[in-house]
């Protein structure tokens, strides 16, 4: 397996590192304090390949807390709030786009 530190990352804008929490699989993001948060707004945002690789290295070294880390594009609004860019990440943030069976319609 290629070490994440040798990977070439194409970073084209604000980027966060996301993964799933080991214990329960919940979607988490790497924070500026090198911890994990289940809130996107607490994610550390970087915008260069070097910075993204550095964060990815930190994330992958912590796979006893979160697994399958990878970089994901975000947009940063004027007020600083973060939003996922693609559909996959929107679903990871917001849950399935369909009503869950048994849930009140």
């Amino acid at each position: 397996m290629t070490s994440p530190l040798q990977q070439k990352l194409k970073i084209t804008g604000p980027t966060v590192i996301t993964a799933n929490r080991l214990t329960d699989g919940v979607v988490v993001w790497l924070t500026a304090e090198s911890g994990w948060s289940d809130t996107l707004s607490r994610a550390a945002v970087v915008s260069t390949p070097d910075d993204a690789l550095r964060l990815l290295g930190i994330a992958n070294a912590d796979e006893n807390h979160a697994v399958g880390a990878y970089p994901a594009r975000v947009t940063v609004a004027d007020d600083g709030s973060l939003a996922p860019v693609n559909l996959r990440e929107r679903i990871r943030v917001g849950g399935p786009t369909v009503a869950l069976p048994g849930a009140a319609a």
Partner: protein
Amino acid sequence: MYIYDEFDRTFLQERVDEFRDQVKRRLDGELNEEEFKPLRLMNGVYLQLHAYMLRIAIPYGTLSSDQMRALAHVARRYDRGYGHFTTRQNIQFNWIKLEELPDAMADLARAGMHGLQTSGNCIRNTTTDQWANATPEEIEDPRLYAEIIRQWSTLHPEFTYLPRKFKIAITAAKHDRAAIRVHDIGLRLHRKDGVTGFEVIVGGGLGRTPFVGKTIREFLPRHDLLSYLEAILRTYNAGGRRDNIYKARIKIQVHEIGTEEFTRRVEAEWAQIKDGALALDDAAIDAIRAHFKEPDFEALTDGPAELEAAKTNPDFARWYANSVAPHRKGGHAIVTISLKPVGAPPGDATADQMDAVADLADQYAYGEIRVAHEQNLTLPHVRQKDLFTLWQALDAQGLATPNIGLISDIIACPGLDYCALANARSIPLAQDLTKRFADLDRIADIGRVHLNISGCINACGHHHVGHIGILGVEKQDQEFYQITLGGKANHKAKLGELLGPAVPENEVVNVVERILDTYVELRTSKQETFIAAVQRLGIEPFKERAYAAR
């Protein structure tokens, strides 16, 4: 029902203990993710978009009412109150926590259930006809052999780390409801000179490189089943490709070395082991048969007065015509329970629905339930005189949509709403289609159409073999869908033909509707089914119309 004995129970408990220890070692950091992943997969545990997913094996699709209640319990206690029945006759839960999994497994084991070999590069749950032991058209109960295969393949030490996953399906009926020609191994039970045996088909499969399987042996005496399977698996384990995950299935090995050479290798290996420890005899097969408890069928005759009277109710009559099939025992019937109500995710059932089906199975169906690969449930043994009462109870639970085999009986994978591999969503599309085709008169007029949706090329929704197949693809973060026509999963299995360029999400339902309108217009009569018309006409007329209005 196959009744587990002390042996099976001991095994399951030991499996639960082993998995509990493995989870503990992972949470303690003793196992890294790379080491743990294959271990959890072999217990049916995936990591999906939002959570871990647990897939529970339902061997050859047969469930007791108590097992169904155990599934309802897991849905409530460890998940979010529902589960998803799959095309491999299993069920999966979408919101399980890793730290709670060992307890969930222990609860399941008490009902004789587990997630064993529902994932990973091992021999998976053997699937079969959901009408087994109920349909009049079969020569023997195929579950007998599926159970023999289950025992042989469970934690097989030689075949736990194969090049890739390995799926076996078996049928004993003329009409193949188990899609055996698109499995790694398909087995068709038939008789020759008074001896029961199998046609052995190898190297079928869907996914990225779909193939219809090749027959490598027309007739294998039933006593030789396990030794022959072991010879196939050994040939695959030694020679299947391991350099490229996309070329690692047995279908690629068969394709690359040729059916003839593959068969030669299998036969050579088999010659060495056929008289060894795996040789079966009648007594061994009967010992397994003795573990299947035959329902205590009441002596009844067909067409009881209760049923004839009920047919005057048009709603019941419609359901009866659509969802009830003949049974081998007089006065009985096979009932298919639609898990495809309008606007709902195909194959999903709530915990309350599971409990309700369990209770109804106890009251009306000798406590037995089946899961069909079309993602519906089946009550295989229902007394005809109870059909009306059963229908009313099913209807009250939203489980009596009379759309079995029709356009809204959609097979769909979970798609991008849940799955980490998906490129596009499947469920919203299925929901939109069922809403467009909600008119029961209209779908009955259109008649038999199998529509299959996969959210990516891995083809869990079996789109290649749908009469209408829909494959989700992603283009610049937009969902597009490719449409194929003319696929079939039955004994004349065939892969669908691509209709044309992929269409955007908001166009798919319109395109499907135009395809079906074209069929209704061009069919020779109502007797000519959609698939027959596609075969007669080719895809051109459908293609013209499907894209014309855009």
